């Protein structure tokens, strides 16, 4: 029998109703205060306006820095063990040193292995020893750096109060930041462009910067430029670093904008001791390898808090406090890509997309009715149902609708009738073979199914590839295309089937109007 069982009809209708139910939020005038599971579809930044930034975490810089540290450790190990060496060098991702004597070389290699976990120490042909991270350790390190960066970026952006920002990893070492509604990302870019590494160092009062430039610089000191244009000779080792900060706030002191800060207990203790022992000396406050100020220590600061002075404006004091509060980035970030769409353009795109969608829909419907008459009308129901299901699934999944996504919807409208065309054409053939109305209708659905499945699954392969390789708007297109293919397979096969079966039962036609 061609008639569908009651339970199957019930399930089909229930799915359709659910689809309609989940599209409702999209048409409500007031979309706020809706429950989390009942939301309108997300609009991509290209539709609602906003800014999209692609950031590159410069992990290589950190690895190079690490190599510098390892170089220091290697030197120390060699000195401690009194091993003669030549050509100690830190490269981009390895440290090499030449040790002629075989015994000392073996001794050194054993000691190098203990410097840090995840180091690969190998001997090259001419007695050179190469120290580098293993691939596993290197990857872990990179992942950790990027994870930390994402966390810090999130904190900084949260401080700005942007609504619903999206911060995600892309690939291995990139971060995508999406800021809906933001029209001018310049300020965000300035904030993200600073690593904000803060540290306090004693100023080396025995060496002037002029001496230092002439090479009279002890190993414990280094020369650092100052924000005032001068330069300072400071101790290599920091008294205390920004990692120990727990809070920073903009404040005023004697009518000047300053940043007040507070250390955790370890930081407070170190800071207290250093200030107690060095009264009268100068303490340099270094931010991103630049001395902001170097006040003279007036007396011990024991409470674990203090202020940073410098020639701040209210705004720059605010910014610095924000950066210090949210922590330092482990690696510098570079902006690779920026896309900002104004709200006006987004609204225009939605309008154009909607108009194209309605016109496309009407054209397809008119065409189908012109080609198939009554059955064309049945298809119309399926096409509308497909639109509802698509929008319903997109809303339910919390997927993002982009401008190319709208194109995907329109395209699906055109392609969705394909299954019905296949079914109706098959019915026509069966009628020609002399089958009864009922048999022909049933054979139409049965015989066309294999073709429908094969043809749609191959299109899905293309959609999956698009999803995998695409980013942003293109990915949005792949999502709508995929959902559209799946929902259209459902509506054009089951929904039309229910309608046609009911129609045959009710009117008992002697021939199919196709």
């Amino acid at each position, binding site marked *: 029998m061609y008639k569908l069982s009651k339970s199957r009809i019930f399930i089909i209708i229930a799915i359709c109703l659910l689809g309609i139910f989940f599209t409702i939020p999209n048409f409500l005038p007031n979309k706020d205060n809706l429950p989390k599971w009942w939301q309108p579809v997300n609009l991509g930044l290209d539709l609602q306006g906003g800014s999209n930034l692609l950031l590159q975490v410069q992990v290589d810089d950190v690895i190079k820095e690490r190599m510098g540290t390892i170089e220091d450790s290697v030197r120390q190990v060699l000195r401690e063990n009194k091993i003669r060496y030549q050509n100690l060098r830190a490269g981009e991702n390895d440290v090499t040193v030449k040790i002629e004597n075989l015994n000392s070389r073996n001794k050194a290699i054993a000691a190098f292995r203990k410097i840090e976990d995840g180091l690969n120490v190998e001997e090259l042909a001419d007695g050179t020893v190469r120290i580098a991270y293993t691939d596993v350790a290197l990857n872990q390190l990179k992942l950790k750096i990027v994870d930390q960066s994402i966390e810090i970026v999130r904190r900084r952006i949260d401080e700005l109060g942007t609504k619903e920002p999206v911060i995600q990893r892309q690939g291995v070492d990139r971060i995508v930041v999406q800021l809906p509604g933001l029209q001018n990302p310049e300020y965000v870019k300035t904030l993200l462009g600073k690593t904000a590494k803060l540290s306090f160092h004693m100023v080396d009062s025995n060496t002037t910067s002029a001496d230092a430039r002439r090479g009279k610089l002890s190993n414990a000191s280094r020369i650092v430029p100052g924000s005032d244009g001068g330069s300072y000779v400071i101790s290599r080792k920091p008294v205390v670093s920004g990692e120990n900060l727990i809070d920073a706030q903009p404040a005023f002191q004697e009518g000047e904008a300053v940043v007040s800060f507070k250390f955790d207990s370890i930081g407070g203790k170190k800071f207290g001791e250093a200030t107690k022992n060095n009264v009268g000396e100068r303490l340099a406050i270094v931010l991103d390898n630049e001395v902001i100020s170097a006040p003279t220590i007036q007396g011990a600061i024991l409470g674990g808090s203090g202020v940073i002075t410098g020639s701040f404006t209210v705004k720059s004091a605010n910014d610095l406090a924000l950066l210090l509060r949210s922590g330092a980035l482990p690696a510098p970030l*570079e902006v690779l890509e*920026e896309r900002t769409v104004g709200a*006006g353009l987004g609204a225009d795109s939605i309008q154009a997309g909607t108009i194209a969608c309605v016109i496309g829909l009407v054209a397809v419907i008119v065409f189908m009715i012109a080609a198939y008459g009554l059955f064309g009308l049945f298809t119309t129901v399926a096409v509308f149902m497909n639109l509802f299901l698509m929008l319903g699934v997109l809303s339910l999944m919390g997927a993002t609708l982009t*401008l*190319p996504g709208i194109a995907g919807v329109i395209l699906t409208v055109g392609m969705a009738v394909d299954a019905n065309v296949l079914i109706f054409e098959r019915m026509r053939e069966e009628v020609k073979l002399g089958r009864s109305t009922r048999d022909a209708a049933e054979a139409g659905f049965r015989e066309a199914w294999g073709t429908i499945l*094969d043809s749609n699954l191959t299109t899905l*392969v*293309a959609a999956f590839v698009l999803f995998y390789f695409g980013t942003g708007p293109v990915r949005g297109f792949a999502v709508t295309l995929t959902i559209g293919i799946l929902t259209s397979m459902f509506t054009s096969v089951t929904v039309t089937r229910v309608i046609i079966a009911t129609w045959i039962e009710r009117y008992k036609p002697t021939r199919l109007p196709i």
Partner: protein
Amino acid sequence: MKLFSWITKDTNIDFLGTRKLTYFISGLSIVLAIFFMATKSFNYGIDFSGGILMEIKDEQVINLDKLRKELDNLDIGEVSLQTIGETGTEVMIRAQAQMLDEKEQMKAVNEIKKILGNDVEIRRVELVGPQVGDELKKDGVLASVIAVLGISLYIWFRFEWQFALGAMLGLVHDILVTVGLLSLFQIDFSLTTVAAILTLAGYSVNDTVVTYDRIRENLRKYKTMPQIQLLNKSVNDIFSRTLLTGLTTLLASIALLIWGGDALLSFSFTLVWGILIGTYSSIYVSTVVLNWFDLRKTIENKEKDVNPFGNVG
């Protein structure tokens, strides 16, 4: 009521009879496409070339000459201006600025903003650094290759290797001729264009699979019909479906091309073209090349493999 009943008429067209001509046309198109790609390259959008793109809108018509002169004074390389729509109040500013890094690009954007003043609405700003573009190009090519291979694998799995080869040739033909056309007319080639090309591939192979399905069915049904006649019959059997589906999808894409707005122009152009060429290739490339093989033998051998005892009765 049924205005288009002429479409649903049975046809008996000798599709394969013209195969020498269509081989020539397909082959020539591919050669020309490769020639254009080699000589004219593409009009890459900033997704691929890197650079600056801004869209602005003013209350009154924007004076392009004046703006161009002002922008030329900036040292940011070649700047191109293009009005959007017909009102003349919307302009797209593009600077390829390949030499500029992101910081310099940002500075350039600020300078352009200064020239525009505060009254102009800035509708879109895009900055793409040079290194991203090369990666995206590589990704685009890789995505297309993987899509073609993935689709062919699926068809191999569902049909026979000859069918997979036919579908693959059809896809390669469609993609090459389409990108050749984009090169010839120097149509803006952006990320969405790649999406359109892959969609085209999806549509084209959809059409091909429907044809293949019918060929396989007919191979089983008509055991003695000569292969060329059988291929012709199969295409004719489903020809009304090919036209109907092609036309509905075409209608939707044309709606997109006309009313979908400027941002989707190259996308919808590629789609419209893709439907035409996809329909052509599923008959004149993917089906015609099947005639290189003895399909019946393959199918029968396979069925023998499946049932070693043969069919009794």
